């Protein structure tokens, strides 16, 4: 039997066992008594409550959503039982999200495609506060000062949602929400180690007193190089250039040493007023990687500091509001790529929520953001350079939303936002939705939306210049000879039509169906001009693209098990063949299957399976991303009256190694460790 066939059989057996466990859940469902969500309990009378048994039930929120956009919530329980130690890996659990691992630290993540190391079509927030890179507008996931067991939930919202969440939420928004100090009282520690010697440790202390509560977390992550983990094999997408780029000297030095600190405090100033403030810091040293055809072989160092303070208040008439300041300071040292750059952003925002008329829920507010960007150019001619720094930029935004019931079953929600950016002037975002309930109990909801959003060109596109060694004529692969910024770039625009259905079919069984069409114009891409041996690339507003797709998700939650399955189809077609969109295309077909079994004696078995089909990148990336099957399995058990837990597991069990996955503009890529056995121990006091 060939090796390939053997692997296919192994994969088949694992998938079959997963399906069998799902079937067990369905069988168990047939005989199960009714179970109730916490929200349902408040609707019950005393007589009904006296008949409810105290047994463990649902582990995942199954609320019927009345959101005006497609939302998936990855809960703390999903994160806990996944055993995963970084946010991008956890995001695979959400339908419609493209997650590509470029190396042990760097991920390309987006919604409905457009993923890339510097992908900038989604808005990423931590507790509602901006977490994107203000120079290149991508997301530095690896430097987020957030510990996994501090996350309460991750909201993944798909579609243009700039009207509700802020500028640049073109394809969606991901909001990482951390637990409040009152929910984490006590001392907690967690250690995860794996067979390669990687470790992820987290210690947390939370205290509650009369009016104060606070939480302090510290964590350290230590990842070995892919080379040392037996998976550092490099491949070249342009073998003819191997000698020129020194390919034989490449080693997968993608180690990571990351120290994270996170502090939050809250004060219940009065019954109606809460004050909160916090500080978080991440200090990350990591190995290098290729950057658009150039491999500097230097370590990177980033520091990320986040501060905030906020006042929430409830007024006598029931209206609520908040004012908030947050400040982010990010510094990056990447010798031979960009010697040093930093940005400091200060954001002041306020929001007020009221219900002034019958049936209307209105929110309005705005923000002012000041950004100062500083760069230091190094001596190497191949570094990316900025010549007009420091850059002082400003944002100013205003929004209003109104949600009202037109009839008992029909709810209308309108959201409008305008933003002024010092570099491109005014623009606007909109989302208008109709939510119709098919039944009185609102267990079956239809949703129709129209939305518009935009993406502004970050300073990296408008001001950065680069120059690289030239290539020779006739080659099918091009290194950018010169890279020119374009100050006159305008906003990329998008609008979408969306429809969906959410239904609670029976106790614990829910179904979600969504579909969309999205149009893009003035795509912020690259125009490549070749004249003889010289290649000149310029950031430009290219033509547009059409995107469309659909998602289906079914979830079953019972006392002893929880299982869900989803399928997403995402298509993207540019107006011109091979048009550069500075990002990757989505995997057309994605699917996920999760099963969680609550067994006897406090054992919990969890399995996650994710499938992506092959991604063809046209000219944006040299080598297509292959089909991906990923299966994670783990088993955990509580001990010491629930104060402790041990987990053992294996992630990516089907693949000895993973990848390689090529980044935008990269000529080479290397494998990363696939199948990884790990163990975790947690204690709380």
């Amino acid at each position, binding site marked *: 039997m060939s090796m390939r066939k053997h692997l296919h059989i192994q994969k088949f057996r694992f998938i079959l066992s997963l399906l069998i466990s799902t079937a067990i859940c369905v069988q168990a469902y047939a005989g199960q008594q009714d179970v109730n969500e916490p929200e349902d309990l408040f609707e019950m009378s005393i007589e009904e409550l006296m008949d409810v048994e*105290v047994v463990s039930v649902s582990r995942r929120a199954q609320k019927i959503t009345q959101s005006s956009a497609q939302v998936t919530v990855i809960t703390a329980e999903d994160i806990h039982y996944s055993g995963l130690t970084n946010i991008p890996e956890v995001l695979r659990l959400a339908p419609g999200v493209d997650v590509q691992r470029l190396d042990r630290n760097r991920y390309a993540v987006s919604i409905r495609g457009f993923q890339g190391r510097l992908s900038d079509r989604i808005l990423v927030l931590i507790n509602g506060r901006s977490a994107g890179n203000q120079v290149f507008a991508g997301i530095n996931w690896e430097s987020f000062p957030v510990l996994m067991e501090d996350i309460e939930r991750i909201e993944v919202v798909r579609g243009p949602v700039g009207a509700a969440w802020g500028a640049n939420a073109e394809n969606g928004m991901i909001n990482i929400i951390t637990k409040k100090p009152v929910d984490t009282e006590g001392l907690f520690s967690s250690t995860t180690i794996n067979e390669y010697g990687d470790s992820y440790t987290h210690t947390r202390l939370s205290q509650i007193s009369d009016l104060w509560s606070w939480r302090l977390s510290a964590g350290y992550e230590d990842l070995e190089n892919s080379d040392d983990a037996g998976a550092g094999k490099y491949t070249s997408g342009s073998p003819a250039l191997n000698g020129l780029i020194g390919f034989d000297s490449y080693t997968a030095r993608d180690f990571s040493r990351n120290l994270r600190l996170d502090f939050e405090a809250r004060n219940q100033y009065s019954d109606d007023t809460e004050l909160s403030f916090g500080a978080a810091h991440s200090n990350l040293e990591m190995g290098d990687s290729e950057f658009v055809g150039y491999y500097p072989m230097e370590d990177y160092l980033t520091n990320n500091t986040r501060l905030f303070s906020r006042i929430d208040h409830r007024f006598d008439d029931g209206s609520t509001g908040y004012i908030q300041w947050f400040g982010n300071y990010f510094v990056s040292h990447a010798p031979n790529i960009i010697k040093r750059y930093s940005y400091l952003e200060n954001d002041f925002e306020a929001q007020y929520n009221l219900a002034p008329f019958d049936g209307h829920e209105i929110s309005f507010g705005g923000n002012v953001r000041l950004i100062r960007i500083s760069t230091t150019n190094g001596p190497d001619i191949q570094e990316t350079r900025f010549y007009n720094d420091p850059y002082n930029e400003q944002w100013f935004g205003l929004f209003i939303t109104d949600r009202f019931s037109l009839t008992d079953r029909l709810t209308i929600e309108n959201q409008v936002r305008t933003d002024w950016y010092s570099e491109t002037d005014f623009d606007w975002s909109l989302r208008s939705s109709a939510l119709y309930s098919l039944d009185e109990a609102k267990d079956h909801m239809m949703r129709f939306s129209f939305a518009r959003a935009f993406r502004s060109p970050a300073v990296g596109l408008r001001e950065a210049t680069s120059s690289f060694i030239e290539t020779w004529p006739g080659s099918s692969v091009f290194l950018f000879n010169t890279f020119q910024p374009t100050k006159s770039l305008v906003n990329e625009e998008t609008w979408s039509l969306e429809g969906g259905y959410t239904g609670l079919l029976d106790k614990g069984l829910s179904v979600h169906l969504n579909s969309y069409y999205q149009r893009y114009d003035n795509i912020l891409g690259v125009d490549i001009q070749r004249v003889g041996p010289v290649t000149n690339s310029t950031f430009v507003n290219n033509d547009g693209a059409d995107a469309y797709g659909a998602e289906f998700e079914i979830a079953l939650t019972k006392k002893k098990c929880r299982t869900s399955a989803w399928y997403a189809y995402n298509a993207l077609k540019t107006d011109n063949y091979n048009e550069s969109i500075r990002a990757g295309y989505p995997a057309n077909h994605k699917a996920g299957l999760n099963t969680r079994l609550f067994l006897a004696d406090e054992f919990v078995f969890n399995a996650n399976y994710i499938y992506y089909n092959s991604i063809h990148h046209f000219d944006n990336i040299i080598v297509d991303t292959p089909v991906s099957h990923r299966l994670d399995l783990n088993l955990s058990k509580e001990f010491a009256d629930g104060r402790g837990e041990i987990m053992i597991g294996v992630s990516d069990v089907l693949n000895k190694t993973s990848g390689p996955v090529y980044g935008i503009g990269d000529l080479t890529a290397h494998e990363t460790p696939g199948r990884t056995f790990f163990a975790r121990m947690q204690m709380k006091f």
Partner: protein
Amino acid sequence: MKNKVYILVILILLAVFVSATSMAADSDKIRERQIKAAFIYNFLKFVDWPEEKAADSNEPITIGIIGCNDFTKVLKPLEHKKIKNRNISIKYFAGYEKLKRPQEADDRQWNEKMEVLKTRHVLLLCSCDDMRFENPREIIKALEGSTVLTIGETDGFLESGGIINFLMENKKVHFEINVVAAKKNKLRISSKLLRLAKKVVQEKSP
């Protein structure tokens, strides 16, 4: 390194399997509290407070929690609901250790804390590890005559002067009511609620 991790995993598994430690289900405890939270929401519909505490309909109905902060989370959804057209406000006060009556003669600080508790409509005295039986008794005694609905979940709560106590029977939550204590705190409890209680402590007939 790989072999060492495998050995570690096997040893951990062995330790788990030979362990005789009893396994309490955290999840069942959370479920129990969720059900009790729903009971508390219903209790608010069937209890009337005196005029001095019910006059201002703009003031929320306030629920204070002592002992276990777990209840704060399961009660939080009530802040989005209304009872008798009034909002509900939830607040966690402290553990029992912080509310322990001091031995010194001057317990002015403790009295001040009790005065704050008296401003609540409902006080939930939770059962948790650091609780000693005499702690709730001291607090209940201090709240006598104060118009506070005291709710507990321990044996002897009614005998200590508490008004409503949760009890478990056949994995289901029930409750018992001390009408005498309710009258001392000037509270009127609906007969419907009394009918559903497992036990009702009434005044002894002469």
